[in-house]
Structure formats: C-alpha cells, structure tokens
C-alpha cells in the first residue's frame, strides 16, 4: 500500500493503529479515525499522538476534509494521513485541508501512477483571501 507524499510514492510504514474510542496510555500513538468521530475528544491527548489516519470510505464522502481542518484548528500538529478511497484529483484538497499524506491501495496506485498525483501549481483561494 503506497503512501503518496509531496515527494512522490513511498511504501507504507507498518504502523499499529489504535481506536480513538479507547486510547491506551503512553505516547507516540497512531490513531485510526472513522470519519464520523468527534475530534474534540482527542484534544487532551494531542501530545501523545504521533499520527492520525482519517478514513475515506468512498471518494465522494468529503467528511474527512472537514475533520482534518477541525483537528488542525484545534491545534493538532502531529502527522495527519488520509486513508482509503481518495483519487489523485483530490490530492490538492487533502493537502490544503491539512493532511500530510494519503495512503492508497495497490490497484489505485497502478491505475493512477505517481505522476498523476503530483499537484499542479495550484494555489488555493484561501491563501489569497487570508489577511496578511
């Protein structure tokens, strides 16, 4: 399962994910977050979380983009990964919503190889509108 990063594809790291409902003690956690979870429940533990992976059950289901923004808005600065059914045309949305990378399956990687994921130079209107 490749991970798409701004530098291209790389092999997936074998992380052991835990559920956000029952976070174990300790730090450096990797959390597998369904897209109907409430990110506010994690705020207390942000310091212990190294990675959050948000699920995209279908590419037309855009809840994950809002969740990512909410996490970032709440102050989460760890690694943020989108996992599941995203297509290359959504890569810019993922990046602009605060994701660091996107995990896709092998079949999609074959159909949409690396060069199709490279974001065209496309600034977001958010940058233009932002107060300086």
């Amino acid at each position: 399962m490749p991970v798409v990063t701004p530098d291209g594809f790389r092999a997936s790291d074998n992380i052991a994910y835990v559920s956000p409902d029952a976070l174990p003690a300790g730090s450096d956690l990797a959390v597998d977050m369904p897209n109907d979870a409430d990110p506010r429940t994690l705020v207390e533990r942000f310091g212990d979380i190294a990675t959050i992976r948000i699920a995209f059950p279908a590419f037309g289901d855009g809840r994950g983009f809002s969740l990512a923004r909410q996490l970032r808005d709440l102050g989460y600065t760890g690694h943020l990964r989108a996992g599941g059914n995203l297509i290359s045309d959504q890569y810019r949305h993922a990046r602009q919503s605060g994701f660091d990378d996107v995990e896709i399956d092998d079949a999609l990687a074959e159909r949409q190889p690396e060069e199709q994921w490279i974001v065209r130079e496309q600034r977001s209107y958010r940058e233009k509108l932002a107060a300086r």
Partner: protein
Amino acid sequence: MYSYDEFDRDYVKNRVAIFRDQVARRVSGALTEDEFKPLRLQNGIYLQLHAYMLRVAIPYGTLNSAQMRQLAMIAEKWDKGYGHFTTRQNIQYNWPKLIDLPDILDALADVEMHAIQTSGNCIRNVTADHFAGAAADEVEDPRPAAELLRQWSTDHPEFAFLPRKFKIAVTGSPNDRAVIKAHDIGLRVLRNDAGEVGYQVIVGGGLGRTPVVGETIREFLPKEHLLAYCEAILRVYNLHGRRDNKYKARIKILVMEEGLESFRNQVEAEFASLLEVHNGPSLIPDPAVVKRIEDAFAPPRFEDLPESDAAYEARLAEDEEFARWCATNLTAHRQPGYAIASISLKPVGAAPGDASADQMRVVADLAERYSFDELRVSHEQNLILPHVAKRDLPAVYDALSEAELATANIGLIGDIIACPGLDYCALATARSIPIAQDIAQHFSDPDYSRLIGDMKIKISGCINSCGHHHVGHIGILGLDRAGRENYQITIGGDHTESLKMGQRLGRGFDAEEVVPAIEQLVQTYFSLRESEAETFLQVVERAGTQPFKDALYPAKEPADAG
C-alpha cells in the same frame, strides 16, 4: 464590474489545464466513469438526452459586452447557435462535445468566465439580485459579498465533496428578487439600529421534492464575519448532512431533522471556535482583497440628468407600442434620469430563456453603447440593461424591436419561467417548453395580458423544480402518469420576501387541457377580484384556493381524486 486579478486568471487557466488532463485520463482509462463524473460535474458538464451539456456561470448575473460576445461565439463555434439562460443565472449549451470542452473552457477563461462548480455536490454559482447596483430600494450592492463568496467557495478544499449541492443567493434590498428563502443559504444586506451594515442569514430553504421556506439563523451578522459564518454552516453540514439518501441530503433536511435551534447552536459553536482559532488569519479576509472587490462595484459614472427627458416623453405620448414596453419592461433606477430596462427572452413562440448568438450580440452592443457596458441575467430567464439613460430608451427600444427582443411582457402572464424539461433533460418526466409556448400563444394579446396584470407562471418538467413551480403564482409540474405527460397545477406560490409554496388544486391535466385550465383560473380571478388593482396572488390569499378548485373541477369530480 469585477475584473480578474492575476490570481484569478492563473487559477482559472490552470483549472482548464487540469480538466484537459482529466479528459485525457478518462479516455486512457486512468479515471473510471464513476470517478470522472464528479470531476466533469464540477466543471459544469452534464450528460443529457441528446448530448453533453455545459453550464457556464454568470456570477451574480453580471456580465459585460465582451463576455456576452464570447458566449455568442461559443454558441456558434462549438454549439448550435444558441444558449439557454437559466433560473440560476447560468447559461447552458445543449450540444457540446466532450473533446471540445477544454477548448470551450479556455475560451471562457479568455474573457474571465468559467463553469467551475456550476454542478456537482459543491457550493454552486452564487446568485444575486439582478437589479443589484441599480435598484432604488437597495441598502447596499450585494455583489461584493457574492464575489467574495465566489472566491471563498471556489475549490474550497473542505467543501468539494459535500453530501449534496449547495446554493447561496444574496440580495441587497428588502424586496427580494433573488428568491433567497429558497436557497441553502440566503443572505440579505441590511442596516442594524446602530447603522452598521451586515447580513441577515437564512438557512435551509429549497424547492425540489421537499419544498422548504428557509429560516433565519442569524438576524444580524457583521460584514467581516461573512466567510467565517458560512464556513461554520458548511462545516456542520459537511460533517452531519445525510449521505445515506440522496433525496434527504440537502441542508434543509438536516435543519428540519435537527431543529433550527439545535442546528443554530452547532453553527454558532463552530463559528466561535473558527474565530478563536484563526483570530483573523484566513477567514477574516484581507482588507485589501475586500477593497479591490468593493471598488470594482463602485457605481458607474452617471451623468447628472433631470428626472425625465423630453424626447422620451414625446415618444411615450405618440407611440403606443413603445409606451407599452416602457410600462412593463422598465424598473425605477436609483439615479435620476436613468431606468433599468428588462429584455424579455419570452417572445410568443420562443423557448423561455433561449437566445440566439445574433441576439446575444445585439444585446452586447446595446450594453456597450447605452448601459456602461453592463448586462444582467435574471433568475426569471430575462436579460437586463441595468443603467439606461431615459434619453436613450427610444434608440434602445428600436434596436431591440429589430432583433425581435422588444416583447413587452415582463411580469405578465407571458413572462413564463420554464426549465428545459423532457426536450433536453435526462431527469425530466414531462416537457415544459411546449406548455410554456402554448400558454404564451393563448395569452398573446397584450391588452388581455395587461388586464390580467401581475402573474408569474413557473413550469418544471419534474419534481426537481428547476422551473421554480412551487413559488409560481400559478405553478405547473410535469409528471409521467402511466406513460403520458400529466401536469399538476398549484396556485398561490410567492417567490418574493414573503416566500410561499403554492397549493395543489387537484388531479393533473393532459397537455392539451393545461391552457383551458389556466384560462379557467384567470376567469375565476376576474370574477373574484375586487378591483383591477387586486392581483391574482392577492385574490388567492384573500379568497383561498377553494373557488379555483371549484372552477377547475366542477360537478362531482372531487378535487382530490388523484
């Protein structure tokens, strides 16, 4: 008028390049049809009955002559010589080929236009009062807000894959000409007691199979919080709107299921946290950007003119046709000596909203010469010259007459809204345009239609209600009844600030029964009205629907039989 800055230009050109690439990848198989469809929809491309269809945005209904000429050029070069202006201030081409579409989008970008987000489950083209910047009753021009929203919503990374489409409309006047209460978000510019300008925010309105009148979620929103508040609404909707059933996926259903209070609390909480987090950075827009937009909509350099003009008055006195056109097609302008001139796209026999390339050019020339290079598209499927000096009205009228564009029926029974219906639309259950044509033909006598007075007939070819039938004084909904086209009639709908859905009168009618039924309704109105000043809608409100039911379904046929 707003003109693109470098960012806009690069952005739109780049989107065309991305789409060109997407078409190539669809052809190569890198994109499946399921994946490609939402991408083409986000560029305004549908597949209809006969061909693809392209829907081009005319943001807040404003365009200049160069843009109108380019629309004409596209109609001739890549389509069949005409376009269809819609109730959402878009223009639709019915015959483009997918392989030509990247070139068409490029041609649009050349004149600072695009088709981005005119379709798909995203924030659609933002619409506004078509008299913006000219209307006498306006608090403030709503278009700077609409342009700001256009920029904010364009490719908004969070909101490109919403549960369903999302439509925003803005008006700057207490008299609502933008149907804001039938939109997902409706905004009205108003002044509070302290004299500050802000917005009344309405949410959860819509037509379609579940018509809902939008409700006020915020009585007064300070101007600078427009984007943050909309972002909060959209975020709550994106996270909680239903995705299990396409017919329950609009925000109106979420608001209904949660209740306005609970929905408002969620939005206000999200809004508060957005302000806290960003404390300015991305959702309080850069004042320089806002100022550039506001400056772009500064009023044109009007001349100091007397309230009226001698030549215009003389023509009024001697030319009955001209006087008739002025009586129906002109609206008061805020600037002395000027008028707002509506150009009816409903001549008898035409498809409502259709304009040929030649007609587009005539209108473009007139705008350039007589209306500070500005044109408007109304949700009633007409075109508008917003700033015409009264002195020039005779010349404008003569040019329009020559191009068969001087039909004097604005606001009258012949000024019918109709969606494309089964003649073009893949979702239709019945035809709309031929019904509109039959009605317009029947009521073509200008004296008769003036006698009837203010009358809005709105026709949709299926329950999706693109033709706004729910809010027509008379609404007509085309259905399929066992393989036959069948038309249901509602009355009492109101598309203004007092938005109301019409009530169904009874069983539907065959196509050829529709005109006699409308004539019945008109006769019933005549028999009920207390004076010529009492409009059809007022009579329905006073007398109720029963007398109209009795007229349409006499004898023992119960009104609710089908």
